[in-house]
Structures are given as structure tokens and as C-alpha cells.
């Protein structure tokens, strides 16, 4: 299991990092924290790198290093990093260029074995997609800012499961809203649901939606299986059945106190490109964190 956590600044990425690391801890996943910095125009790329080289001689960090340092301090404070590493503080000099504008710092984790910090520059979707494709992450965790404009590209082009930590309040108790139907994506979503529920000790609402009054046997079975699996894992779960438009019902039920978990659409990419998909529309319209499982 590999997790990628995308952060952008100290001000806005606190919840993302916190949620991400808690999930990583439960899943014992090897975890990478990435900061994607400003895109540099090609005309000025070398001028900027010349300026960055000069900054080193002034002991000024290049842009983005301060964000990594902040993430490092978070890891240190919450004991994700081994104590022997900690006494030296942020190991700035172990940030090594690994080519194509990507710099990497490998850390010795305590609870999680492989822990690394990465700095990249460019368009965020391009950079995340490249990172996920080259290093095969299973889950990408990202903050909610700019969610609506990025939602489509995230869902469509990033190969891993995606958790958008949107409007997340660390002090609030969240329930999990798990969308259940007979699609192949559901069983994977249920597995993630169990893990996340264990990580945050949440209750789970299993929501099955039909367009009309009639709920098919497949729907009922899927819901029953999910409930059984939750119980077996010691997670408190309750099944609900609703009639209506799936996207509207999910968004409405979720409100602001749920984390939505649903399977990715199995439609062809071309249909999704032109028509959109349920997960995409949920992500566009909801006001709470969403996890889309691929």
C-alpha cells in the first residue's frame, strides 16, 4: 500500500496532512508527502534556477523547502519519525534532486517504515499524475482548495484512489457515508470504508439509492454484505435505502458531517469525459470530504 499526500502551504494543508497521516498509520502504508510549487515558464527556467543557486550561498531556502520543513515538524511532533533522527532537526541537506524538477528526502519512519518528502514544480494535475504513474500509489490525498475546477481532472486522470479533504474540521466528529450498489467498485469502497472507520473510530451509514421504489435483489444483497463486513471488523454500521437521484441524495445525506466514500465509475473514459460520472458530480457538489476508490 502506497499513499501520496499532496500539501501546498502551512495555512491550508494542516487538515490534509493530519487526515492523511492518520490513514497512513492505520494502513501501515509507505507514505510520500509532496509539495507542488509554482509552475516556472520555460523562458525563465534557467534564470530562476540561477537565482535559487545564489540563494543557497545566502542560506536562504529555495521556495517550497519551508513547506517541507513544516511537514517535517508535524511528523516529528506526532512521532511519525524515529527519535534518533529528530535531534538534528530538519535535515535540509538530504533533499536530493532526483531529476526532472523533482527533489526527494527519504526519512526513517517509526510507525510507518517508508516515509519521504518530495518537492516538485509545475501544473498540479500534471505533476500528481506523473508522480502517481511512475511510483504507483494506491491512494492520493489532497486538500479541497480549488476542488471544483480540479475535480474533473483528478477523477479522470489520476490512476489511484482519491481522497479530497474538503472542508475538514479536525475537532468535528465525522460519520462515514458509504454509497453501496451492485457495481464492482462497491466492494473495494467497502474495504476502504472499514479501514477509514477504524482509523478515525467513525460510525458508518451505508446508503443504497434507487431511482424508483423498487430495490433489486442485487442492491439488497450488496448492502447486506457490506453491513456484515463492517460488523465483522467491529465497525458500527447502519443501512439506509433512499429513492431519488443518486448524486443529489448522497450530497444531501452527507451534509457537512460525513466523509463520503464511493467506488469509481466503471463507465468508459470517453463517456465520463463527455457526460461526467456520479463520483465526479458528487465531488463537485458536496461540502464534505470525499474518497473515491479506484
Amino acid at each position, binding site marked *: 500500500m502506497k499513499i501520496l499526500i499532496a500539501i501546498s*502551504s*502551512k*495555512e491550508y494543508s494542516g487538515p490534509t496532512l493530519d487526515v492523511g497521516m492518520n490513514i497512513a498509520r492505520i494502513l501501515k502504508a509507505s507514505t510520500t508527502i509532496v509539495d507542488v*510549487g*509554482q509552475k*516556472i*515558464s*520555460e*523562458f*525563465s*527556467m*534557467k*534564470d*530562476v*534556477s*540561477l*537565482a*535559487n*543557486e*545564489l*540563494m543557497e*550561498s*545566502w542560506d*536562504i531556502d529555495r*521556495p*517550497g523547502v*519551508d*513547506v517541507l520543513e513544516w511537514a517535517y515538524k508535524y511528523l516529528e511532533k506526532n512521532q511519525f519519525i524515529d527519535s534518533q533522527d529528530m535531534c538534528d532537526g530538519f535535515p535540509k541537506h538530504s533533499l536530493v534532486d532526483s531529476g526532472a524538477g523533482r527533489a526527494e528526502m527519504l526519512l526513517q519512519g517509526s510507525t510507518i517504515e517508508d516515509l519521504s518528502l518530495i518537492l516538485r514544480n509545475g501544473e498540479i494535475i*500534471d505533476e500528481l*499524475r506523473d508522480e502517481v504513474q511512475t511510483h504507483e500509489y494506491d491512494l492520493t490525498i489532497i486538500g479541497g482548495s480549488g476542488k471544483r475546477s480540479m475535480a474533473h*481532472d483528478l477523477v*479522470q*486522470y489520476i*490512476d489511484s484512489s482519491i481522497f479530497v479533504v474538503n472542508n475538514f474540521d479536525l475537532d468535528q466528529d465525522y460519520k462515514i457515508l458509504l454509497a453501496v450498489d451492485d457495481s464492482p467498485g462497491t466492494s473495494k469502497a467497502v474495504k476502504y470504508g472499514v479501514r477509514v472507520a477504524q482509523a478515525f473510530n467513525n460510525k458508518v451509514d451505508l446508503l443504497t439509492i434507487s431511482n424508483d421504489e423498487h430495490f433489486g435483489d442485487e442492491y439488497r444483497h450488496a448492502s447486506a454484505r457490506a453491513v456484515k463486513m463492517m460488523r465483522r471488523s467491529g465497525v458500527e454500521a447502519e443501512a439506509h435505502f433512499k429513492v431519488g437521484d443518486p448524486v443529489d441524495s448522497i450530497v444531501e445525506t452527507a451534509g457537512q458531517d460525513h466523509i463520503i466514500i464511493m467506488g469509481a465509475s466503471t463507465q*468508459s*473514459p*470517453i463517456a465520463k*469525459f463527455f457526460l461526467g460520472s456520479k463520483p465526479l458530480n458528487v465531488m463537485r457538489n458536496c461540502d464534505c470530504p470525499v474518497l473515491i476508490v479506484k
Partner: protein
Amino acid sequence: MFGFSARSISNVLFWVTRKKWLILSFLLSISFFYIPSPDGLSPEGHRTLIIVGVTLILIISESIPLPAVAILILIMEVILGVDTADGVASSFMSDAVFFIMGSLMLAVSLVNQGLDKRLALSVINVTGNKTWRIVLGFVTISALLSSFIGEHTVGAMMLPVALALIRNAGLDTDKATNLSTVLLFSIAYGCAIGSIGTPSGGGRNVIMIGYLSEFGMGTVSYLDWMKFTYPMLLIEIPIVAAIVWYTFTPSQKIMDSSVRKLKVKVAKTGEMNANQYMAIAIFLVVFFGWIFLSPFIGLGIVALSGVFLYISFGLVDWQDINKNTNWGVILLFGAAISLGIQMRETGAALWVAEQTLQYLEHVFQDIAIVRWFVAVVVTGILTNLLSNAATVAVLGPIILDMGGNAILMGIMTSVASAFAYLTVVASPTCMIIHSTGLISSSDYFKAGWKLFVISVLLLLMISTFYWPMLL
């Protein structure tokens, strides 16, 4: 679907969305190719304009790397029959491209000498610790230096000085406070107004001089150029300082501890060493070469002579030059200048110039105003979307074909291409200060539009009242 996996289809879709401008430019060029040439435009000219369109779309959208755009220009010039392969090759390299190459290499050589700390100290010694004096000092030094050694060099050298002051001011550097905004913009805008001062201030000035002599329209010497533009530069220094100060007035009026820490920092690096003296001496040699020798051997060869001296005296490693020189930009300007020359030779530039004059004359009634409008306002706007040198390379031939005094029109266009105040991509210095993450894109417009309007008006006055006296 059709035996393709969902993943490969999704990859293709991703490619299409990222490359939509490339695809669009391809489709547009094919459709324009089959439209019959309008009256007064030769078939070669028609095809040259197709290449110009493709180039503009690809540079602005950045959908393929710049060196690829450069190569595409060369390929299209040959395939569309605009010129022979040898003809394209010989128009690809010129003294202007030598100059751009030499100037980028000189930048690496100079930046490597550690002169930035000396520079910081001398600025601070003059300005003292009042913030407004530091802002004025930054604008002045950036403008004066960049007029001789180019804005990209000065931008890179001044950035750490500003960041050191900001960091030692005890503020949280990730907050875009007015102090960091005002200091960084004083560098960027100072460099921008400075770059008009001499031919060596920016590659685009040399491109224009190259066009003027290539088209047989006149020669401008280094000192002549300075007579035209330096007064404007000097007038703009206090204007820029005032505009950035009043747009982003910082709450810290005195930077006592920052200045003191900066002095301590520089003191630790010790006295100037022999290499640094030698580096300055070589630059002075280059500078006098530009003034006295360039009429005979060209600005580019003088710049390259300087690079030769830096390398052979061991002041800079070839590895450093190789790594930090933007070869892609050199290729692109080579190709863009080649395209500019083809625009002139195929008559495409003349045709566009005539059409523009014809249409705009209805609007403005006076041909002199139309010329001024295109040379100043259109150049000024395009320079903010494209890079400033690419703007001159593409617009230059058209403007020179619009009539009027070619030398004045040429210098006016070059000066207007320095009005790159409004966007991040407009100039290398704008990008350098943006890369710190301390400045948001909207800040450029806040101060930039005032400066843009004032610069346009100032250029209008200077070109109407002062320039004719020089002729």
C-alpha cells in the same frame, strides 16, 4: 472499447486535453493552407503567416516545449516552401542570436562570482535603513545595472538580497506581506525599465538592431541607442519607486535589524578577491567593446569574446555554463528571427502592415497615430502575453514595414516591449520574483497597470518631443 483498455483511452484523453492547443494549431494551419491567398499576398507570404500563427499559439499556450516550437518553425519553413533548407539555416544564425547566447552565458559567469553580496552591501551603505530609501535604491541599482548586463542577470543577483532583508525583518515569510511585495517588485520593475537603456539591456534590442541593418534601414550604435532611451530610463526610476511604494506601502518603515544582519553576513565573506576584480575587469572590457568595437564586429561577437575570456581565465566552468544556459530559448530566438526575416522577404510583413494601416486608419484618421498605436500599445500588450524578445522578433518586421522613420519606429517598439509589468510570464524577472511564492499573480496587475499607462504616455512624449531633436 475497440479492444483498448480503459486506462489507455484515459491516457489518450489526457494527452488530448493537455495538447489541445497543439492540435488546434495543426488544424488551423491545414485549413488556412487551403484558403486561397488574399490579394497582394504572395503564396510564400501566405504560408509564412501560417507559421507565425502556429508559433504564437504554441508559445502562449506552452503546450509543447520551446525548443520543439523552434524546430517546428524550421521544419515548416522548409516544408511549406518558404525557403530552401540552406536558406533557413543561414537565416537561423545571426549576430543577434550570438548576442542572446553570449548574454545568457555572461549572466552565468557573472552570477557565479559571488558579487551579489558586494552589490548588496554597496546598495545598503547608500540607502541606510529606511524602507522607502531601500526601495528607491533597489529600483535604481536594478535599472542602472540591468541596462548594461541584462535584466535576467540582475534579477537573479538581487533576489537573494531582497529575500535576506525580508527574512531578517522577523516576518513570517510565507505571508505575502507588503514588505516582501514592495521589495520584490522594486527589483522586477527596476530591471524592466532598465532593460531599455542600452542595446545590451535585452536581447530584443539587439534583435531590432539586427532587423534594421538586415533590412537596410539604418544602423544604430551603442551610444546612439543610449541617447534615445537613457533619459526615459532615468525619468522612470522615481516613478517606479513611487508607484510600488504607494501601491504596496509596507507597515515597516525602518528595517534596522535586517540591514544590520545583512552587513554582518557580507562582512563574513571577507574582502573582494582577485577573481572578483578580474570578473569586473572583463565585464568592463566587454562594455567598452560594445561601445567602440560593435559597429565593426557586432554586439554578439563582443559578448562571446567576454564569455571566451571568462572561460579561458578559469573564472567559470564550462559545466556551469552548459547547465545554466537556456539552450531552448537560444534555439527559439534563432528560429523566431529566421521567421521574421522570412516575413520581410516574402512580403508577408508588408501585407500585414498595409492591412493594419488600412483598417486602423478608419478608426484613428491619422496614419502617424496608427503607427504609434501598433508600435507601442500592441507591442506592450503582446509583450505581456508572450515573452518580450519573441514579441519584437515577430512584430518587428511588420512595424518596420509600416513606414515612418524606421529607426524611431524600431527603438519605440523595443522600448514598448519592456512594458512587461502585467503578468508573471512577461519577463524573466517577473518569473524570478514569482517563483519565491511570496507574490500572487494578481499583484502584478495592481501596480503594473499604473506603470503601463504612465510608461506609454512617457514614451509618447519623449518620442514626439525629444527624439526628433536627435535626428
